[in-house]
C-alpha cells in the first residue's frame, strides 16, 4: 500500500499530466484553426493494423500454457514414464506460480540473449530440418535425403540446433528428434512470420493508397 506522501506525489503527477493534456488539446485546436483546409480527396478506407505488443506477449503466454497442457495430456498415456519424468513437467503448475514477465522486462532482453535463441534458427535449412522432424524422429540419412545436404554440410546446420536444445540425438540409432523447445521455437517463428507478413502487407496496401506528393494530388 502507498503512504500519504506517495499518494500526494501521485496526485501531483496526475495533475501535471492533466494540465499537459489540456495544453496539448489547446495547441492542436490552434493548429487546426491556422491551417488551410486540405483539398477534398476521395475517401479511401484503410484498415490500420493494430500492433498491440502487450496483447501479443499475453497471447504468447497463453499459447505456451496451452502447449504445456497438450504435452501433459500426451504424457497421460505414459503412466510409468509420467512418474519418472515428473520433474520435467515445467508447464502449467510451475508456470502459474511464476509471475509473468512485464513488457518492460521483455523489451529489456539484450540482443545477445535474443541471439542465443534465435541464432540457431537462422537459416532456411535449419527451419526445414525442424519442420521435417515435427513428423517424428529421423535418421541422419533421412535428413540428408530431405534437405539435399550431406555429411558435414548437414552437420553444420544440425549441430547448432542440437547445441541450442531444439533437437536431441538418440545415441542408440542416431535418431534425431525435435524437442518441445524446438517445436515451440519453430511454431513461434511461424507465428512471427505470419504477423510480419500481415503487417508488411498492410503497410504496402496503405502506401499504394497514399497520394504521391510530387504529383500534387493527381493520381
Amino acid at each position: 500500500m502507498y503512504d500519504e506522501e506517495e499518494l500526494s506525489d501521485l496526485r501531483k503527477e496526475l495533475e501535471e499530466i492533466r494540465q499537459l493534456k489540456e495544453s496539448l488539446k489547446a495547441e492542436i485546436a490552434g493548429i487546426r484553426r491556422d491551417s488551410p483546409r486540405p483539398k477534398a480527396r476521395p475517401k479511401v478506407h484503410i484498415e490500420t493494423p493494430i500492433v498491440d505488443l502487450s496483447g501479443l506477449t499475453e497471447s504468447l503466454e497463453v499459447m505456451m500454457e496451452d502447449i504445456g497442457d497438450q504435452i501433459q495430456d500426451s504424457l497421460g498415456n505414459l503412466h510409468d514414464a509420467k512418474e519418472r519424468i515428473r520433474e520435467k513437467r515445467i508447464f502449467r503448475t510451475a508456470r502459474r506460480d511464476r509471475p509473468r514477465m512485464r513488457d518492460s522486462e521483455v523489451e529489456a532482453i539484450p540482443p545477445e540473449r535474443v541471439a542465443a535463441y534465435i541464432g540457431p534458427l537462422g537459416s532456411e535449412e535449419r527451419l526445414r530440418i525442424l519442420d521435417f522432424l515435427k513428423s517424428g524422429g529421423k535418421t541422419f540419412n533421412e535428413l540428408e535425403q530431405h534437405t539435399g545436404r550431406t555429411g558435414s554440410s548437414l552437420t553444420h546446420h544440425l549441430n547448432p540446433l542440437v547445441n541450442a536444445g531444439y533437437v536431441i540425438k538418440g545415441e542408440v540409432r542416431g535418431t534425431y528428434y525435435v524437442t518441445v523447445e524446438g517445436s515451440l521455437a519453430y511454431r513461434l517463428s511461424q507465428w512471427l512470420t505470419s504477423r510480419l507478413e500481415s503487417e508488411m502487407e498492410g503497410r504496402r496496401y496503405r502506401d499504394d493508397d497514399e497520394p504521391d506528393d510530387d504529383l500534387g494530388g493527381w493520381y
Partner: protein
Amino acid sequence: MIEVNPNTGVKVVVDPIEVISTEKVLVKVQPGCLWTELVQDGRQIGAVIHGPAEYAFDAIAETEEGALGKSFRGDMGGFKIYVGGTDLHGSSREASHEELLTRDFSSSEAFIECAGGALGLHNMHHDSDIKSSGSPGEGVVIWSDDGV
C-alpha cells in the same frame, strides 16, 4: 538353479557384438571380452561377461509437441551379467591363457570363480528365478559402475 557353468570354459569375443539391440537400448561387447555361460537348471540363459563394452540408452519420450528426455552413452567395465538369447558363441572362441592373463585372471577356474562371485554381488543366488527373453538382442544386462 542359477550358476555359471564350469564345464563350458571361458570364451573370448573376437568380433564386436551387440548383445542388446533394440530401438531404445544398445549394449555392444568389444573384442577381448571374456565370458562364460550363465545357466539355469542346466540350460543356458545368458552369459557372465568381463571386459570392454559400451551402452547407449534413449530415455526419450515423443509427444505431439516435441520430444522430452535425454540420451545416455557410456562404457561398461568389469563384470556384466547378461540374461537373454545371445549370438555370443558365433563371435567368440576359447580364451587362451594369455588372454585370461591380459584381464588379470590366472586361469579359467579363477575367471569362473570371480564370475560366480559377481552373481552373488548382484543378488543372483542359486534359488533366484529368472525368465530370459528367447530372442538374441532382447535380454537384459545387470551391471554396476563400480565394475563388480
